[in-house]
């Protein structure tokens, strides 16, 4: 019962984080800052949803597969983010930087 509640909390928090990340990629001003918003949905959102599903599955083969999906995402998403940012930098896309320290409104 407690496990059930915990899993629903994780699943809902994951879903909400996904939507917030989705809002983020529309609010932020340039490509590099949007990458951070996409990073939210790739890390904690995915972790919470997979963890919540794992709690539902219990100690089964399904939980092992969820753990594998988690491991793959854990290792591939930073690589993909780095490759994207690196390619964008080398193609000459300039990041909007906050030079005067007053902050940029998202």
């Amino acid at each position, binding site marked *: 019962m407690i496990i059930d509640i915990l899993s629903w909390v994780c699943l*809902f928090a*994951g*879903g909400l984080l996904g939507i917030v990340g989705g809002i983020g990629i529309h609010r932020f001003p340039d490509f590099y800052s949007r990458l951070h918003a996409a990073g939210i949905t790739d890390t904690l959102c995915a972790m919470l949803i997979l963890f919540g599903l794992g709690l539902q599955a219990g100690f089964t083969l399904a939980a092992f*597969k969820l753990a594998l999906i988690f491991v793959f995402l854990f290792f591939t998403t930073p690589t993909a983010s780095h490759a994207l940012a690196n390619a964008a930098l080398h193609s000459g896309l300039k990041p909007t930087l906050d030079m005067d320290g007053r902050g940029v409104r998202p």
Partner: protein
Amino acid sequence: MFIAVSVAILITMGLALARALTGPTTYDRIAAVNMFGTKTVLLIAVLAFLSGSTDLLDIALVYALINFIGVVAALKLVTQKNFHSSEENRREAE
């Protein structure tokens, strides 16, 4: 309950798709498609539990790998304009 989570994931996918359509740069589009792919993996995983057939998790597993390879391949095509030359080959040619 699983339905609510899949709807939340679908909304996120819709937002990512909107970013992929509006751009403005190619890299924005690829980042959005990458995010869309990650969300697809999660959606398949949730659907596996929703429908009760956990065999769908294998598909999610494969999709996670294909999504990564696809994004890296698309990036390579965009930055180098072709698939046949690697960084080493270019250095040797120069």
